[in-house]
């Protein structure tokens, strides 16, 4: 998974997201009365752990059509690094681990 193979998004508006997928499913010939679809439902997207209201997802470039319109309100393209950082963001521990911030810990999401 790289920026070359995928595009990464943060979705802040469910209505915009569903408009995107409805139009795109129609463009792909996926009738909306079956389970076949391009992208998952809003509830199946990854919850942004920081906001708990936004959603995160990566989309394979090979599956994106020129007609797919990502310009809707609340649809923000981000890069891989941001995607991973946000996806694995955690609330700070109750304790003040001031020195832990100075550590050069290996980023675990690049395996």
């Amino acid at each position, binding site marked *: *998974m790289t920026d070359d*193979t*995928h595009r990464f998004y943060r979705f802040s508006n469910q209505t915009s997201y569903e408009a995107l997928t409805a139009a795109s499913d129609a463009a*792909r010939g996926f009738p909306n009365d*079956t*389970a*076949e*679809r*391009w*992208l*998952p439902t809003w509830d*199946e997207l990854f919850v942004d752990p920081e906001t708990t209201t936004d959603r995160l*997802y*990566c*989309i*394979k470039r090979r*599956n994106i059509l020129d007609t797919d319109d990502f310009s809707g309100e609340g649809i923000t393209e981000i890069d891989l690094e941001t995607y991973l950082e946000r996806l*694995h963001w955690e609330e700070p521990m109750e*304790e*003040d*681990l*001031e*020195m*832990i911030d*100075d*550590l050069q*810990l*290996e980023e*675990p*999401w*690049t*395996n």
Partner: protein
Amino acid sequence: MALNLSTLTSPATSGNVLQEVTTTADFLESVPVLRNLARGTNAGGDAEQSVALNQPKALPLIDGEGYLYVSGIAGNSATVPHESSLNLTNELEVVARVKYRSYSGADAQCIVAKWAYGDFNFRFHTSGYLEVFFKDSANVSRSTSSAYTVYNNNVSDGDTIWVKMTIDASSTSTNIDFYTSKDSVKNEGDVTWTALGTTRTITTNGGITSGTNPVSFGAFDNSGNINDDLVTGAILKANYKSAIGGSPVLDVDFTANNVRHGDTKFKCATGQVVTINQSGNDPATVIKKPVLRFDGVNSVLRGLLGHTHSEGYLFAAFTGLSTGGDRWGRVFTTNPEGLTDNAHGIQYIAHAANTSDIGVEQGIGTAYHLGLWDKEKNVLVDLKVTNGLQRSRVNNADEQASTNSLNVSTDQFNIGANEGTETRNDGENAPLDLEYLALFPATITDAQADQIRNYINNRNRVFSLIDSQGYFFFDGAATDDGQVLSSSTPWNGRIVGSDNGDSDFYISQNTLDDRPTTDGYKITFADNTDHFDIPSTTQAGWQVVGTSKGTFAYRVNANAVSELTMLGNAGTYRASGDLYGIILLPESATNRDIEEARKLLIDRGALDAAYTGGFGSAWLNRTDIVEFRQTAFQGATTLFRGWKGNSNLVSFSAIQATNCSNFQDAWYGCSSLTQFPQDAKLGTEASNVNFTSAWQSSGLTSFPALDLSSGIIFVASWNNTNISKFPLLNLNNGRDFELAWRNNNLLTDFPSGFFDSWNPITIYSGVFNETWDGCPALTATSVENILTSIAASGKWSTQSGLEGGTALSDATIDIDYNVATGSLTAATLSAIETLNGRGWSVNINGVIQ
């Protein structure tokens, strides 16, 4: 090898017929007699066939090695799809080890071909010359053959030989050489080659054109179908190189250990997937154990039982080769002399009415084992027929039983066809590969019969627990290249014949962007969205997953599962990589069963030990995992959150993660894990290892004396566990112990001397912040041990630990302890004084001392 009956039963109960197919017949030789190896007093006669046309043929091992058998019938070959790595430019070297029935004949015979639109076709000419066709850079077809035939190099038909051909087309004067060798060696590097005459030089346009047609063995593609230059014989190995003397671009070794008997797809040494194309009653077959091939047309062996036989046990190991052949083609039957086997025999295994079923006549009435007559299904049928109880099983599963009264007796037996009355003589033939037949009297016990079946299976390796008791096997090789794994064309994990999994079990993904893809051999999960939806299942057992990141086995509980990822049941992280298969065995699986399942997937191409790379979050929140088995993690660079949240994990075997430098949160929240393996190796070959929260909030009640000396960060490592007595560890490189043993309600004993040799490169501020806070059971002696030891280290509260260094902004040592165990000792107070003198502050039970 002769099977000594006395090893299975007492001499007094020795069997009637014991047939064994470890024949001394040579490859493709017709077999007139199959010796009865039974030694008991009731031993019957041999199985015989005097008519050559009706004799089965032998497919033994060749020099102890396996091979691809090809029958010379159209539709039977092995192929490898084109890929760009197979392209040729100016040179080619082809090497093969083969054993053909004849090296000349009415038609040429393929050795290795990649032909029709380019590349080459290396073959035996009809007169025994070696010959090659290729297309030069102008796409003009060129050809030449060796100056002499292989017979000139003392090769005889049926010999096992090496052949080699090289093309040097780097100029328009293209040089081609041919070689043979009869060396009985298994490795190409050990071969001494003999040229078949001098170099052939032909004028070309130089170069070799590459096309996109597949590589083929046993036949070549002359017109879009791989049905020309058909071979009758065996191919042991073949490879070709795009540079003479270079490394193979394709290396297909049918003798390799990872290639199994009957495989129809396998990954070869150079990574390509080899497909065995099969057609008809005499299909191309990977042979890895000796078999007798019955042709389904007229092959039959017969014999006399030597006594009147009315009850007993029958064991037959075989593979049904085709749904062709005669209806109700027989595997084995008995009959009274002059009477038909179907009406008067008592033991009868057949190919049921040209279906994919095995039919078993149990004296009276027929039982069916559905779907088990299959060229890809090696089976061991055991059949018990007694008066009042008849029972048959296939691969120790799919039991069919009846309770009929019997009053028949037989004295003859038949293999491969029906009994020999005048009207049905040599009829109802079955196409099959026979491995083993044994008949025992009814006087043996069922327990002994189980031993016999297990003996045969251990010896012939017919089936594994997957076949008999597996819940599912999602087999990458059972998919088609490019198959869309949606609900329209899902992936079926059914195990035909298994008592637990013999029904369709589909997984799929209907969301295009979350859908894994298949190349017909492995399933690729491209990112952290790819996964499968499965019908909710609550099957506990051993889950074995074979992937490009390792082959792992874990015991899973009966939690409902509705999603499968590359690493099995879903947690909260979806790993990416290639999946070769997922198997679910019953909880009763033994270590051997689990290893067999792992080996199967490893042979397919899955990595055995963990790959070299990260396993961050790999099994995050897998609340289904109870026991984690695969622990060869030498390649792991990070196990960050590896098993975090595995709240039902109770057993974790001795992990070997010697090169891993990050164990942060690895077992965080494994609240059922009370013990950690004492033989574990964690980062012992790494440096600057991070153990932050590694065992935090786990259920550990003790901790082994592991070598954690490479660790530098122990923040909250054992925070909130149930450890009561902490061992003496070497954490001398530790730079930060903040929260390390905090909230250990049960911790009483902390060893003396723990920090005596503490000597990190640097010390972080807050190194002992809240380190022993929330330890209400800690004894006064432990407090003394902690403080006297830190004092003994001689470290000052500076980043360097040296007097005069940069002071730590937080230099407090926080300890809570149980005052009921005593007041602070004189040694403790003395240590505090020493520490205070080095800038440390000591906070005991909330009071600065």
